[in-house]
């Protein structure tokens, strides 16, 4: 009898635990479903709606910007202002990499010097990603502002980068998706738009070839200030505690162009760097490890 009641009790306990788990899963699912539902006029959180439109009066950095004339190469410093040492003729390997990350970079550089560069995904028309989009080919940058968003559209880079200025925070844990542009949130600090980005895929690089690597722990902070009506100053801090021993800072300078516009450029139109290309340029992808997979775990 006693034994039987114990069994029954255990079964009840297991049942209750299962029910609780199901309820929790159900609640989580419902929460996710809620998040994906259209806003409802009767139940919408008006405070959140206000926040979404709050930046209508925010400082305006919208415009068609191009890198200031004469700006050809980025100058990088540590946070105290000390310039990075330039250890080689590319000026790239003075970055504060941890040993195994430096080794990964050296391997890329050796392959590049040998005329057989590793497979940088941009060679097969991948977008350059958040930081390389600024520096790769010094292309124009169109910025638009809409309620709750600042959009950055670099020519030759896609998709449009969205900076959430509606109070959104970064997704955490499993919810954070890793993308080429990352997840960016911004807020106005006086006249300056401060942007914080995480969730960056390790396939992108922080420089042109041979390509300074970064890990998925890269954290980017940008400060965008329209210092006069025709000048946009962008301070960028690249902080990758997994790959580097300390953050690196640089500054980009853009000028407003009133009579220029974005060109449509489709990289896939005539890319001769694809595998098995039979024309004059070498095959860059296929025989070598593709960027991202050559890095320490």
């Amino acid at each position, binding site marked *: 009898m006693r034994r039987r009641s114990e069994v029954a009790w255990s079964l009840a306990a297991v049942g209750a635990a299962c029910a609780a788990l199901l309820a929790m899963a159900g609640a989580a699912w419902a929460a996710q479903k809620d998040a994906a539902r259209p806003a409802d006029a009767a139940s919408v959180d008006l405070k959140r709606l206000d926040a979404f439109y709050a930046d209508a009066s925010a400082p305006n950095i919208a415009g068609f910007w191009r890198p200031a*004339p004469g700006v050809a*190469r980025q100058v990088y410093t540590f946070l105290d202002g000390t310039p990075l040492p330039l250890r080689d003729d590319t000026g790239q390997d003075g970055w504060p990499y941890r040993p195994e990350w430096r080794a990964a970079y050296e391997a890329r550089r050796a392959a590049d010097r040998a*005329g057989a560069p590793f497979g*940088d995904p941009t060679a097969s028309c991948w977008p350059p990603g958040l930081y390389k989009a600024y520096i790769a080919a010094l292309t124009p940058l169109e910025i638009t502002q809409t309620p709750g968003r600042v959009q950055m559209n670099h020519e030759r880079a896609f998709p449009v980068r969205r900076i959430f200025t509606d109070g959104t925070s970064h997704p955490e844990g499993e919810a954070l998706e890793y993308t080429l542009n990352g997840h960016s949130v911004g807020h106005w600090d006086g006249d300056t738009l401060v942007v914080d980005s995480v969730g960056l895929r390790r396939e992108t690089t922080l420089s*042109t070839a*041979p390509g300074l690597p970064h890990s998925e722990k890269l954290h980017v902070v940008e400060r965008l200030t329209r210092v006069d009506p025709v000048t946009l100053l962008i301070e960028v801090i690249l902080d990758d505690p997994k790959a580097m021993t300390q953050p690196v800072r640089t500054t980009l300078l853009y000028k407003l162009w009133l009579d220029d516009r974005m*060109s449509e*450029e489709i990289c896939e139109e005539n890319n001769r760097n694809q595998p098995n290309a039979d024309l004059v340029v070498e095959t860059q992808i296929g025989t070598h490890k593709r960027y991202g997979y050559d890095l320490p775990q």
Partner: protein
Amino acid sequence: MILNSKAAVFGLVLALGLAAAPFASAHHSFAMFDRTKDSVIEGTVREFEWTSPHTWIHLDVIEGGKTVEFSIEGGSPSALERQGWDRNSFKAGERVKVTVNRLRDGRRGGAFKRAVFADGRTLGQ
């Protein structure tokens, strides 16, 4: 903040402007080209491809009495059109001398540097 002062901005422009200019490409490494040496290729334009991510000038070149094709990679249309190029910058049949950095592996190809046409007109990038 120091960066908000005009003097600092001017200093910054100066510092950045004085830094050496690399051959920036969004697209691929230029390791395949011998960038230490300029070569002049003289020929007749067979075809000009006004395409992304690179433009291509294909020349008929006389080599040892035979006509061979030499292919030259240029910048993207979006970058070049801001420097005065268009899809008719090279016309089939035109004679032209093009300065290039040749492919390191000896194949007939290179990266564009500048062109001089028969009438003296020049194009750079």
